[in-house]
């Protein structure tokens, strides 16, 4: 039973679509259209260029010895410049996940979106990438499961985070 099923009337005056159409309530409609072209910067430009090549690149901080992904030119913990580029693997472990049943327009989705944080192999534990999961039944997803990136073909890749289609499960134990 729906929670609202028992309620027969709500307090106040209900506005009908006709009221709005008849101009009983006035408003002003405007579509705001700002446009941006964000400079990716040193670290993310290299990261995207490497995605185009089908690789994931990170930065290493020699002070705390963490391998940071997504890469950045500064270590936020040590507040110093990071030191070197390190290629890491496109495999990892599901740190956490959520199965989203609601779209951005608040409608129920026919096919749920599988969102996960994947701790990438080769990066410092706890660092990774937020992406989608695929080739898996939602009910089979588990925290701790091993996954691998499924890439677009090299001709399709354009230097974007979506060059990775999704992560799929590997080597089911």
């Amino acid at each position, binding site marked *: 039973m729906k929670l609202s099923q028992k309620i027969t009337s709500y307090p106040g005056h209900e506005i009908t679509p006709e009221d709005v159409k008849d101009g009983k309530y006035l408003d002003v409609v405007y579509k705001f259209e*700002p446009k941006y072209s*964000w400079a990716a910067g040193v670290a993310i430009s290299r990261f995207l260029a490497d995605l185009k090549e089908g690789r994931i690149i990170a930065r290493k901080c020699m002070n705390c010895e963490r391998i940071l992904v997504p890469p950045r030119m500064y270590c936020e913990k040590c*507040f110093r410049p990071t030191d070197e580029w390190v290629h890491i693997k496109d495999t990892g472990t599901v740190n956490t996940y959520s199965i989203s049943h609601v779209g951005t327009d608040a409608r129920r989705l026919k096919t749920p979106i599988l969102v996960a944080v994947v701790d990438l192999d080769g990066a410092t534990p706890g660092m990774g990438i937020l992406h989608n999961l695929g080739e898996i039944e939602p009910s089979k997803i588990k925290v701790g499961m091993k996954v691998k990136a499924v890439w677009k073909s090299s001709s399709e890749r354009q230097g974007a985070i979506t060059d990775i289609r999704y992560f799929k499960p590997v080597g089911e134990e």
Partner: protein
Amino acid sequence: MPLRIGIVGVGHSGFDSMTPGLSTRELMFEAASRAYEDAGIDPRKDVQSFICCTEDFWEGISITDEYMPDQLGAVLRPLCTISSDGIVGLATACMHIMSGIADVAVVESHSKISDVLNPDEISSFALDPIYTHHVNADPRFVAGLEMARYLKETATRREFCAQVAVKNKKNALLNPRGVHGANLDKEAVLNSKVAASPLTELESSKTIDGSIVFVLASAQKAKKLGNHTVWINGIGWSSDTPLIEDRDMARAAYAEQSAARAYKMAGVRNPATYFDLAEVDDTYSYKELQSLEALKLAAKGKAGKMVESGSFDRDGRLPVNASGGSLGVGHMLEATGLHRVLEAVLQLRGQAGRLQIPGAKKAVVQSWRGIPTATGAVAVLGN
């Protein structure tokens, strides 16, 4: 007793029309690293309050506050963002220090306007959506309206406004940050294209990218930090009504009130003779004249004549925007106030290079948030 908060570190980056090679965050890291080195502090240990002055629509990210910590060394530290001019951020830092919440506070503001493809859409969107937004023109028409009323009420001659642009653009040629420096004459300024009458294009500042970071400290702590402390002795800020048609268009009333508060705090009785330099709002040429009168650095209606006679030149009685101001250096959105403070601090430290005003000891700085706002702030600085 005057306010006594020390500016113990400054750092800046960018100051270019475009910075395509760096992300906003990388630009900020560069400025912050320099400021912390200048102050001799470790942001991970020595700072109890971080304040950013940004506005979501300029950033192109909503709730942009959340993207500020990493590049300032502020991860898991107290940080807040203020959607106003950088001098309001300095005022907030002063309050955090005076209240005992912080001994050392950091204030950052930046412009990454080169990331914004249609900035006029954003300024225009700041107009009242129901009452004013119907005017489908470059939002500088608001400046045109103010300027026309100012010229009429004060009987200021049109060419005196042009002289502001000539002076500031010329000053900027000596400033390594002076992106829009130029050697022009009044005819060139007056004959440049009309943006919104009577305002011309060369009387409108152009935007640039950059980040500016200040490290502030309590009087006690400042003694142990940095080598060139400049003191904030008074600070004030104020907002007029957002209804454009209900404001006094000829006056910068927000600046009058901000100045009155800052002067009272600093014990400034006769502003016209008190200061060695002033960095004031010159987003548009007439704004400098309006601001000088609001700050009581010129009598009502007399600022234009004084600019014309050279009183506000670099070697004049009171150098005004010796840095080149926004007309000569560039406009930096919410960081514009911090840019003016930066130039004043370098002067009071004796580090202004070829711009240096010999023996500068006292400065007044004033900012305005730009079209269509009527918000401004004033700081009184001393060394």
